[in-house]
């Protein structure tokens, strides 16, 4: 079993010469970078709408397209209805949209964010103050039972194990998932997140546990 790692977490974007353009495609996300009159015109299209940015970039440094996790917890609305009897368990995968960010990396290695490219299918809401408040994202995803055959280039596949520890049947309205940067892994040209265990103590209360991703020996040995 051999996976061919492809680093989709960080991609170098070539700066075009005068009059030239550079194209980057990542699923539905299209970037077009054009060198015009000393500046760079960036046109982005996320599958729904396009935006334009003018970038002023110095001669030394590199432009990178990086993937980063959502800033806040994501309430994943599963498209199917999950029904868990007391003590029941389900295993599968959900897709959580990730954010892309254009980053300018200076020759000394320091990186600074230029443009954020939020995915159109990741909504953000303010849930008020207090416990359970703050910002939260919401996204919709099917509940996949296996990883193969799923093509989500703009989303990270999160292995989840959902368990009902309560005494009643639980039909969770959503699965709350918090992704961290170190939870993301580029595997086989796709994005995979650290596995989760979501334990329901009641229909409204869920507890999320994460299994940290180890640094693989193959990655260490290069």
């Amino acid at each position, binding site marked *: 079993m051999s996976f061919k790692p492809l680093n989709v977490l960080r991609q170098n974007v070539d700066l075009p010469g005068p009059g030239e353009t550079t194209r980057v495609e990542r699923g539905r996300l299209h970037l077009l970078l054009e060198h015009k009159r000393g500046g760079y015109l960036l046109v982005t299209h996320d599958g729904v709408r396009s935006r334009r940015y003018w970038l002023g970039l110095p001669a030394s440094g590199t432009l990178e397209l990086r993937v980063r996790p959502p800033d806040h917890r994501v309430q994943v609305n599963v498209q199917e209805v999950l029904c868990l009897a007391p003590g029941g368990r389900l295993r599968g995968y959900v897709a959580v949209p990730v954010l892309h960010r254009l980053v300018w990396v200076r020759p000394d290695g320091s990186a600074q964010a230029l443009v954020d490219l939020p995915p159109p299918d990741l909504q953000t809401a*303010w849930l008020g103050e207090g*416990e359970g408040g703050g*910002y939260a994202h919401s996204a919709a995803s099917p509940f996949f039972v296996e990883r193969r055959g799923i093509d989500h280039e703009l989303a990270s596949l999160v292995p989840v194990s959902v368990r009902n520890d309560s005494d009643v049947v639980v039909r969770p309205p959503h699965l709350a998932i918090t992704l961290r940067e170190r939870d993301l892994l580029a595997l086989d040209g796709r994005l995979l997140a650290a596995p989760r265990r979501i334990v329901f103590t009641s229909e409204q209360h869920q507890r999320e546990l*994460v299994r940290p991703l180890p*640094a693989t020996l193959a990655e*260490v*040995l290069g």
Partner: protein
Amino acid sequence: MRLGGLAVVLLGVAAACDGFGDSRMQRLEEEVRALRAAQAGAPADVTDAMAPLRSAVEVLVQRGEVERTRWTALAAEIDQLATLVQGVVEAGRRGEVDALRQRIGELERQAAERAKAQDEDRDLLLRALEATANKLEAFLQQARVRKGAALPEGAVPEGGRGSTLWRSVRDPRVLWPLGLAVVGVVGLLAWSRRRRRPSVLPLDAPDAFVDAPPPPSSKEAGLDGRDGYLTDSMASLCGPLSLLVEVRTANGEAASQRLSNWLAQDPRVLARPVPTFEVRPGVLHARFYVAAGMSLAERNSLAAEVRARGCGESHADRRSA
């Protein structure tokens, strides 16, 4: 490494079968000879042969250093944040800030302890590697000397060779260093596997991610309507920013419907609090909310786009104009 593994197998077989037949030993020796012939291009020096393992350990150590640096920077940033927040929160919430500062102090102490443990681990690993390389080197040299004494160069292989190898392996002066080397390598592998073994941790465990405390209201933080960037950590603490856009249009109802659909699809606009629209004669007031981390330039750009959409212009129209 392969040679070491083979030596382990040899030892195990030898220990298990004391009365090993000459013919089987001869076959075993031929296999060893074939393996050595295959490894003729491999580095003869054990230190060279173990260079990949050494580099891997060094990479692991460097990663630990990077993690430690990141941890320290994070603690410093949170400390600075707590200092900033302490000046603006009400007296009733000072206790929370103090608790946060204590927690930061605890985190820094843990980071220092972890750094010290990492240094000790690194020294232990490097010492183990050195010892393993030395023992293996000594063993190989001894085996070569014994083989050279028993078999002159160019001699035809005989059945007695198996017994020479057998004697050299069973010699206590060889057996002990070899055993120590094998134990060292196996221990190193086990230690590495233990470090890499994933473990399930709750998100609220001290070693894992700690959820941010409930964010204070924007008024308490004194950041309502401020211009410019906020850092990500600060932005997650502040409430949403409201944007009020005045759209001049003759048909306010149609414009509000159009804008409502458009805002619902924009990921920069918060779904909650929901956008509100107020229709007045000849003008439409649209109020919507964005996250506190959005820059002033981006907010202005969004407001301009909303104004244009409300008037019925599309992005392409504006561009062509």
